[in-house]
């Protein structure tokens, strides 16, 4: 267990340090959300109607931004070989990295999102739904993103490939997530949050194994 905790702590420290991915993701998320009204117009009712979707899509893009270096940085500098030879299995390594990525990207985004929702005039009723849906959805984004980035770990500029590969796989998360927030605006309960929870509940435990399989094949060829 301490090996898992060691890797988790190292990744969090690396992300928090200067040039780490935590600040990068938050900055990108804030930039996209503030840029949008400049493009679309600041009319409150219009912004309110698209706020849920914008926040969710910006969160997904911010996650993708920091995901592509999840394994590639360690692959390129030889750390992945040492991890493969350590007592911690590749599945454990993938699990620790997914958790570290969520803690340094998914969670901070969720905490920051209400602040940015104010910029988009999101109706007050939707704030709890926004928080809950992001809290449930971002782990699934990290999980599926980790699988995709494990597949492209040997690709020189794999980061460009990631959005294309991950887009169809993430549609359920965006649909249920944004759908939940939209429904909560007019006080409805359309059960989107339960689908999101179920989706996250399935992908989270499985993704370390699929990601480990992808890493194993990329290491051994």
């Amino acid at each position, binding site marked *: 267990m301490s090996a898992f905790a060691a890797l988790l*702590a190292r990744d969090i420290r690396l992300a928090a340090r200067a040039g780490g991915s935590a600040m990068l993701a938050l900055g990108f998320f804030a930039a996209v959300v503030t840029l949008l009204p400049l493009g679309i117009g600041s009319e409150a009712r219009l912004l309110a109607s698209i706020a849920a979707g914008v926040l969710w899509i910006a969160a997904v893009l911010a996650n993708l931004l920091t995901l592509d270096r999840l394994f590639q940085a360690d692959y390129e500098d030889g750390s992945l070989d040492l991890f493969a*030879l350590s007592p911690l299995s590749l599945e454990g390594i993938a699990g620790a990295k997914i958790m570290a990525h969520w803690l340094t990207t998914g969670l901070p985004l969720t905490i920051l999102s209400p602040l940015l929702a104010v910029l988009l005039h999101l109706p007050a009723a939707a704030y709890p739904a926004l928080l809950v849906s992001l809290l449930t959805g971002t782990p699934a984004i990290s999980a599926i993103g980790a699988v995709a980035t494990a597949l492209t770990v040997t690709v020189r500029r794999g980061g460009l490939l990631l959005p294309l590969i991950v887009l169809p796989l993430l549609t359920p998360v965006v649909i249920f997530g944004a759908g939940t927030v939209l429904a909560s605006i007019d006080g409805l309960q359309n059960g989107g949050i339960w689908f999101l929870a179920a989706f996250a509940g399935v992908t989270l435990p499985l993704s370390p194994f699929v990601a480990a399989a992808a890493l194993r094949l990329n290491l051994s060829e």
Partner: protein
Amino acid sequence: MTPLDCVEGKGLACVRGGRTVFRDVGFRLARGEALVVEGPNGSGKTSLLRLVAGLLPAASGTLWVSGGDIVIEEREERGKLIGWLGHHDAVKPQLTAAELLRFFARLQGTRAQSVTAALERVGLSCAADLPCQYLSAGQKKRLALARLKLCGRPLWLLDEPLAALDADGKSLLLTMMREHLATGGLALVATHDPIDLEAARLQLA
């Protein structure tokens, strides 16, 4: 150091990306012995080391690792006995030298106190709290050597260890290897520049 008596490979072949890198390579390494793998670039020295480490599956042939009465077949199990020193030094620029070693100590499950001793051994104690981005290539290689010593694994696999080391670095490497062999360790070294170490030679075509 977990006891390890012998490592033996017979008829080993390695195929990477559809190309046969090498065919029917055999060697035998007993406790306290070293083997230097020589050969031109692209002859598969690194692939052989990765194959012994279990990172690469062997296309054909067998590899035994035996210690006392147990024989280890499964290649991921074999990985736990390997001290790996690869081309890249696996050094993170944002972490300090001490942090890096403490992390690998916890990852491998060895005692963290021996970190300062390991840094001392390779002459990096002064740079302990320096982020690794400020270390020179030679210092990074010494840090990798400190990690190798720290993990206390019986079978050392060294891939071009002499690269980036100055004269003192080279002599440090040789003394550390002799110490390792003296305490019953084994070592496989892939290199193409000469290394004056009493060891068997394996020539890869």
